[in-house]
């Protein structure tokens, strides 16, 4: 390689200069707010002003029974939502991977919940869940499962389940699409060889497809855990965390404290807990990604 070419390929200064605008933007709008949140969590900041209060926000938060309940609830909510997304997504991907007529049309038709603004999709769900006039209550009443109007978002347990269903609805298409892409990436000759050896369709799925797409399944479970954990609009629009706090997750609680009551300090303490948990998830995800990449590059 001549000298000119080398200088073309490793101009460190230019490389940094090109990245700088994006980096500075992110530092200002994401990194700085992260630090500011941490600082605020040690103050009693509100619209009136702020004073340093040490660990008071944290002590109050951690000793409150309500907060502990919210944390548990968040994880239960997340567990059901993520598992359902993965299971339904996998089944969906298997179905749409079948070599049948119409599959490319179905593949497009599953996308809308993913693409459409969540806030608008949720208006549709609000109508579906309507206790008097909604179609779900209607089917229930016509078939006799319900003996009268039933507001799905009005009772603690049904609201909890209903928000999970809506969240699964938003998240499933993306999971399906990723699983589908992974399935199509499995080398065809593996299947052909297995077919010649007389392996049944069932065998081929469990012995070839499933092991081949495991890395993607693992990646998607962590990613969708993170997104589900961050889920705000779905619950906010359907229930605002109610009834009586039944659907208040950590994110909802953070929002309510901070921008419902303008108690920035308390809200910030909650946001810090959220960030710590997110950092754990993210670290887990990145470590795993690094391992998968290493494995692939080594063989």
């Amino acid at each position, binding site marked *: 390689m001549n000298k000119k070419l080398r200088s073309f*390929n490793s101009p460190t200064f230019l*490389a940094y200069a090109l990245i700088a605008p994006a980096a500075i933007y992110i530092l200002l709008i994401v990194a*700085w*707010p992260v630090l500011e949140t941490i600082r605020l969590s040690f103050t009693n900041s509100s619209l009136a002003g702020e004073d340093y209060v040490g660990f008071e926000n944290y002590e109050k938060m951690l000793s409150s029974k309500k907060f502990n309940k919210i944390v548990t609830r968040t994880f239960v909510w997340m567990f059901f939502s993520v598992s359902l997304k993965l299971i339904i997504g996998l089944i969906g991907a298997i179905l749409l991977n079948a070599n049948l007529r119409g599959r490319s049309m179905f593949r497009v038709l599953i996308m809308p919940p993913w693409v459409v*603004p969540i806030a*608008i999709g949720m208006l549709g769900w609000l109508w579906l869940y309507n206790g008097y006039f909604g*179609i779900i209550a*209607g089917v229930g009443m016509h078939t006799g499962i319900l003996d009268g109007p039933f507001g799905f978002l009005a009772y603690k347990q049904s609201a909890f389940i209903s928000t999970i269903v809506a969240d699964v609805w938003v998240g499933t298409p993306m999971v399906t699409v990723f699983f589908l892409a992974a399935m199509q990436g499995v080398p065809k000759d593996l299947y052909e060889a297995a077919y010649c050896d007389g392996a049944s369709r069932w065998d081929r799925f469990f012995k070839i497809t499933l092991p081949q797409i495991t890395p993607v399944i693992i990646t998607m479970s962590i990613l969708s855990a993170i997104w589900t954990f961050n889920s*705000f609009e779905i619950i906010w629009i359907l229930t605002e965390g109610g009834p009586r706090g039944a659907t208040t997750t950590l994110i909802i609680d953070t929002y309510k404290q901070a921008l419902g009551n303008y108690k920035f300090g308390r809200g910030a303490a909650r946001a810090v807990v959220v960030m710590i948990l997110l950092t754990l998830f*993210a670290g887990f995800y990145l470590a795993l990604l690094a391992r998968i990449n290493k494995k692939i590059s080594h063989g």
Partner: protein
Amino acid sequence: MDRYTFLEKFFIYSAIFIFMTFILLPFVEMFYASLRPLDHLFRSPYQFYSDDLSFWAYREMWNTVPMLGRYIFNSFFLASSVAILTLLFVIPAAYSYARFNFPFKNSSLYILLAINMFSGAVLLIPLYKVLRTFGLLNSYQAMIVPGVAFLIPTSIWLLKSYFEKIPVDLEEAAFVDGASRVQILRHIIAPLSTPGLVVVGIYAFIGAYAQQFLFAITFNQKKEYMPIPSGLYEFIGYQSVKWNEMMAASLVGIAPVLILFIFLQKYIVEGLTAGAVKN
């Protein structure tokens, strides 16, 4: 490879039907509700059949919510501004990641991935204070500025993979022949990367269109800047909700994004899944 028996086909199609029902029911029901008169909607138990379906709600909604057109325009304006700004920040960065080697390259790429995991909802408090300090609350900027930040990471990753597909030899040859970097950018990179730029731009547009709600309800109280998702709540009156008009307006509001997506879904899905699947 083996073919499906009739029974297998029947089973798979039935399962697909159930799956699609779950996915599409809200949209189908939204559309159906938008065609029915309000007093048909307000019947309990639910009536599956209406005989006087019409597009009346699609006309009436402009009268019920006089600012509706403005909200739709705002949504477009906000999403386009966010998409264009995102591209401006992302193009040089993605090019740099795709072409050069430098210290902290990989670690900074992973940091970008990690940033992706922080949603706007966690950072609302300091963002609120920042925007208040700069006097940006209740303006278009209040929704544009945070919007761009959360789209930069994924867009860099997406565009980087497009730039990597452009053979580096072309640029090297031009460079050896004495072309300046600016000339290379204009005559080689720009034309070759147009498809990639379009896809990333559309991704940013759809993302910006989708994330408007949170920033809009938190950072903006002024009606004239509201995007469609928050504007739709005006159909909720003191007495009753005009569901048919609200659904009509919702569908009109999402139609442009859906149409864009349907035409470009192949490229967007390819781009997004490439990172997770290509290995």
